[in-house]
């Protein structure tokens, strides 16, 4: 019987090598399309960047499909959002990837939350009675361009650490990205300036960084608690709040059901905006700049319409 096991083991060992890696380029896998977009900005032709979660799917709930293992197996670097956003799907993929380079704590594992400004870090007791809370802070931090800049900077540093010969190129690409982002930021801020202080309701707590950066005030949420679907009682409370405060806009992520937001909007004479929390949320939004362009264009048009 032992012979049988060893025969199987030898068979596994002697199977032709299935992993071929490009020596010149860094293979970067990211948890989300936002991080992949930033990796492409900084890495350019020197990296192959791909992501696991699509921009139009809820990043909390991703199926850890074996097809992702084929990609993770070849990765030199895995970049994650962190703050337990991926806790439900990424850990088994990392373990099963059989890739020592990207295990937690290895050189090729990069948790971007460690370098960004994190909001909504709970300070008191945290329990599941509060819903699906993130005890380490809100993970949707990439929706502040300043955090995008920090992510890009850390990516450039990590790429340089992994490929010192290309450090100057990565630094140059980051400087270029930083310059373009600064210009874009000014444009976004100018466009949003007239609407600073506007109150909005959002479906999920996806927007604290975005709203803080562009001066929107989130007054309530369609979800009664994070991860808990809307209830009739809470929906009524949201309607009353919106009527009382004169709020006309509900921001919804593309992966949530629109029935409850539409009902609320109908009752208050307001509008629902399907805002994109990620690159890839719609087909035409393919990079980090287009993400903010899309969201800000949509918001500005709705605010103008509501004048």
């Amino acid at each position: 019987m032992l012979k049988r096991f060893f025969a199987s083991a030898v068979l596994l060992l002697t199977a032709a090598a299935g992993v071929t890696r490009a020596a010149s380029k860094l293979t970067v896998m990211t948890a989300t399309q936002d991080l992949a977009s930033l990796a492409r900005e900084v890495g350019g032709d020197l990296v192959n960047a791909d992501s696991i979660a699509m921009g139009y799917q809820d990043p909390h709930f991703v199926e850890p499909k074996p097809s992702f293992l084929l990609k993770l197996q070849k990765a030199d670097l895995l970049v994650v959002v962190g703050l337990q956003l991926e806790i439900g799907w990424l850990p088994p993929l990392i373990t099963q990837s059989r890739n020592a380079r990207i295990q937690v704590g290895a050189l090729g594992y990069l948790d971007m939350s460690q370098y960004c400004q994190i909001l909504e870090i709970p300070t008191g007791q945290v329990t599941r009675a509060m819903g699906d809370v993130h005890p380490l802070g809100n993970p949707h931090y990439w929706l502040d361009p300043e955090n995008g800049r920090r992510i890009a900077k850390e990516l450039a540093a990590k790429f340089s650490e992994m490929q010192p010969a290309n450090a100057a190129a990565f630094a140059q690409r980051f400087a270029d990205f930083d310059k373009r982002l600064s210009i874009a930021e000014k444009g976004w801020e100018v466009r949003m300036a007239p609407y600073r202080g506007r109150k909005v309701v959002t479906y999920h707590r996806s927007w604290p960084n975005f709203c803080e950066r562009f001066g929107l005030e989130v007054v309530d949420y369609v979800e009664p608690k994070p991860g808990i679907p809307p209830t009739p009682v809470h929906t009524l409370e949201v309607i009353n709040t919106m009527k009382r405060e004169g709020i006309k806009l509900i921001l919804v992520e593309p992966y949530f059901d629109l029935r409850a937001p539409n009902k609320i909007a109908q009752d208050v004479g307001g509008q629902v905006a399907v805002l994109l929390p990620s690159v890839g949320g719609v087909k035409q939004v393919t990079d980090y700049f287009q993400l903010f362009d899309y969201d800000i264009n949509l918001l500005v048009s709705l605010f103008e319409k509501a004048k």
Partner: protein
Amino acid sequence: MRIFMLAPAVAALFAAQLPAQDITELLNRMKAMEDRIKALEAEVQTLKAQPPGTVAAAAPVAAPALPAIPVEAAAQGPPPGAPLTLGGAGPAAAKVLNPDISVIGDFLGAAGNGANRGTSSLEMHESEVGFQEVIDPYARADFFISFGEHGVDLEEGYLTFTALPAGLQLKVGKMRAAFGRVNPLHNHVLPWTDRPLVNQDLVNGEDGIDDAGLSLSRILPAPKGIFLEGTAQLFRGDTDGVFQADKRSHVSTVEHLRLYRDLAESTNIDLGGSFARGNSPFGNGWNQLYGADATLRWKPLRRSIYHSFVARSELIWARTVLAPVRTAALSLSTPIITPFGFYVSGDYQFARRWFLGARFDRSQRGNCLPTNPPTTTSCNLSLGPLALLQDTGGSLLLTYWPSEFSQIRGQLRRTQYGEGLTANELLFQFQFSMGAHGAHPF
């Protein structure tokens, strides 16, 4: 400047006198603050040493002025004028080096006529405690301890080597064998309240092939887009009603080949072939199990939290050596039985919290051989040892998720057992989870 910066440390010192404060923790905090102060002092000295104008040049990506922090965030954030703190609390702050600990409760109830394989009316069926953590740069460990109402069992406890060369992965410890689709699964991830008849009759039911041993697996070369994984496992060879190790050489082996492919973004197919062999507990020879399984999944990514469909089927054949019998010619012969069983099931998620499911089961089993749960009617010896009894069943299920962390399930089950008895039951289940239970493999 220094006095101003030391103020928080002094405040912390006074706070240390408050009751219920952990002195060690405060000392650690003070040490961290002291280090931070030293770092800031060094930074100030560096900046002072630079000629005017070089500061801005050295920081081309200086953050633009951030907008005012809302009241709620301000209450949690640093005081005005304090340097911007980057990074969250970090995983290390939450758990230090303790393992992730979780508890999953599984409460089962049954009503109606259970015929000859009935379970308790009400039972705290299982409390699974999990401990999971990275051991070192080369391995991680996962322990799942199952507490029943009357006993404790190590369901799984194994070390996984994650940094082996050649894409290999080695697991060492006690683990559920990679035989088929259902055997490797813990109770709380099953789409039913029970296990299919074929598992109950041929693979030791809920306990399954769960033994101490080694597991070596590798992703094998395959055409693009196909995930092919081979697994070879060696176990001690003790599994109630399946394998029995009377001596050291009676180890058992399990081999599994898995083929997975994305058919489309929303649809994928998962095929598996399994083989297990060990010493038969019923006679002098092998008990061999052959399995084939197929799973088809559909989950539209844009609405993945609202709709999904999974179809599963698993077929298992056994070739079991029984105790020698004396033939009419008075010689001893070694009888072999070859029972076969399968199930087909489907689960459709029709709303964010609701799932509807159905399952059809059929399985043969050797007359008078044990099942899990046990068959309580006394066996009919007159049928002879080679006789095969056939069980057939069907179930309808409705599952509700109050949240990601709890689940309520009802299952209407009708089973016709080989002894000629029919069971009509309503099974219901409450499951709940506490703590950071890591996700299981797909």
